[in-house]
């Protein structure tokens, strides 16, 4: 029994770290632009497919496919930002609040476009991933723990750590953070907002893509795989604090753990209800999440 529980916890943490990546993808654009990218799920899905492209079609090793996939899908994210979202920012609407809604609709369009594009390119069937994690499962307390769960957790955390380092210490990262904090002042100080926005969308896409790649590596890629993860990732972001990096990680891991405990102790049918229930509870009682202070609206 302990073995089974341990197995469940390990898989929960692995899945949770993928949720954290998706949560991070959401938080990046929310923090910088107060914008929810509804194509995050589809960019996640693209990560899995592009990953297959690199490993199967080009025959590259998996460890190389990870950064390549991240870069490739980041570029896709930036392309859409420049072509579809930036023009909307400059649109003539009766009220600035409308811009956010228009961009939401536009990202919805992006999501539909990417999902159907994937289906046209790769077919609607699930595509298998080549066996990446081929080692024998570890035997702990009588349970078999597949090593892939540990790898996924490791890669996800490594990615988040490097992203954090980049944002804290690189010149571009500092510019992004400045723009997120106070757009006008940052612009006055010489930060090029257009570039910062592109980097934001690009990084968000790349992070989500790696999540998709990791999940694809332990199962398959299929065109609708993004939707469920998008919702869970967003929930994780809300739990941790929408817009907070550490919040994304903590929220993701917590959600993954909560789900696995529900599966182990109650029943797997209720697994998805956990995410919803947590989402609604947090939105109701603590919308700013665990780590952030409640936001004061400016007049």
């Amino acid at each position, binding site marked *: 029994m302990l073995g*089974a529980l341990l197995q469940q916890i390990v898989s929960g943490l692995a899945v949770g770290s993928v949720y954290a990546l998706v949560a991070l993808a959401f938080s990046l654009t929310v923090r910088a632009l107060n914008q929810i990218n509804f194509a995050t799920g589809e960019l996640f899905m693209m990560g899995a497919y592009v990953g297959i492209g690199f490993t199967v079609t080009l025959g590259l090793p998996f460890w190389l496919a990870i950064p390549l996939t991240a870069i490739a899908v980041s570029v896709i994210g930036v392309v859409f930002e420049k072509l579809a979202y930036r023009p909307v920012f400059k649109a003539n609407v009766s009220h600035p609040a409308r811009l956010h809604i228009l961009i939401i609709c536009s990202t919805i369009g992006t999501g539909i476009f990417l999902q159907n594009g994937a289906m046209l390119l790769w077919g609607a*069937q699930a595509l298998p991933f080549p066996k990446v994690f081929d080692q024998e499962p570890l035997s702990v307390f009588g349970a*078999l723990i597949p090593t892939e769960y540990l790898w996924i957790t490791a890669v996800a955390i490594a990615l988040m750590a490097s992203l954090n380092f980049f944002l804290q210490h690189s010149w571009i990262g500092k510019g992004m953070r400045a723009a997120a904090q106070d757009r006008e002042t940052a612009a006055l100080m010489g930060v090029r907002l257009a570039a910062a926005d592109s980097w934001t969308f690009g990084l968000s896409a790349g992070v989500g893509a790696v999540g998709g790649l990791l999940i694809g590596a332990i*199962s398959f890629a299929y065109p609708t795989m993004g939707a469920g993860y998008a919702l869970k990732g967003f929930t994780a972001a809300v739990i941790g604090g929408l817009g907070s990096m550490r919040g994304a990680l903590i929220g993701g891991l917590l959600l993954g753990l909560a789900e696995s405990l529900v599966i182990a102790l109650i029943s797997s*049918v209720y697994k998805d209800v956990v995410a919803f229930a947590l989402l609604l509870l947090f939105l109701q009682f603590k919308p700013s999440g665990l780590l952030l202070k409640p936001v004061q609206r400016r007049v």
Partner: protein
Amino acid sequence: MSTTKHLVLAFSCSILAMAAQPALSQDIKIGSLSALTGSASQPGQSQRDAIKMVVDEVNAKGGIKGRKIQLFIEDDQLQPTVAANAARRLVFQNDVFAVIGTPNSPTALSAMEVTMEAKVPHLVLGVAPKVTQMGNPYVLRVTPTDSILAAVLVDYAVKKGARKIAILSDSSDYGKGGLASALAALGKHNIKPVITESFNNEDKDFASQINKIKASGADSMILWGFYVEGAKIVTAAHKLGLGLPIYASSGVLQGNFLELAGAAAEGVTVVSYYSNADTAPQTKEFIAKWKKAYNTDPNPVAGLGYDSINMLLAAIGKVGTDREKVVAELKSLKNYPGVTGLKTGAADGELGQGGIILQIKQGVAEAVAQ
């Protein structure tokens, strides 16, 4: 301004609607309705491809008694609303003689509201029992229902010595129906399952269910779900060392299950109504034609589409394009040799009887004697 705009819109709609398709009146018009886009589009595309293949062949030979067949293909995007609209387009705009489709039950039921009222023969591929229980005299079903397939599977499992059975089914309509049918079939053998577990489609992880089944002392497992989850489950069972014979539903074998599951599928038994390993002459002919047209192997839904269009055209060939006569003809069939099993007519429209047992040996599903 705004009214002018919607005026223009309304008028263009009507004009487009009135622009009829130029067609010869002797053409026999058939409609194919299924999900061609969307994630579950593989069965829908298989249905369309099978029907198209047959129609093209028949037309190349001159049609039926000199009349060509005009095929109208519609996509329902797996949405009941879209399915109903597409059915209306087929029936009222394209004036089809009959409709074939869909492999998905909610969209089929939605389209049936249209075909039932318009008294258009409708060959459904979806398996929900309700389809033939609504008192629609024009509906026919070529697919053997899950209650028949479950009975075949259970009988085989029991014959192979299964006594303490675990049932793992998905939470959708398909899984729930399968579970109910399996329980009924087991009841006939006076067996109750030792444990039943379920999962959601799109689930990633099945360790919990498998561990519970492992702990329950079961000697066999019945699996009722679709191919993506099926592949994940047998893979997980293999990894976690479940070690039980697995008896799976036809849905498991529908897509590229064998490719996805790889070596983990070895030894899995599947009940189906179609197998590429079937040696019946009509099946071999079907497989040859399909390979020539599409360069791959056909799948069960393609077989259903193939049988549906062939039976429909045969009936039309015999009694002409009279809807009532064609339906009566189909309902009076006896042991028609379909590639998806023998078809025998019944008053409620259920034409599919019997199933076959397949076992996966070295990556190939082989037919085994029952």
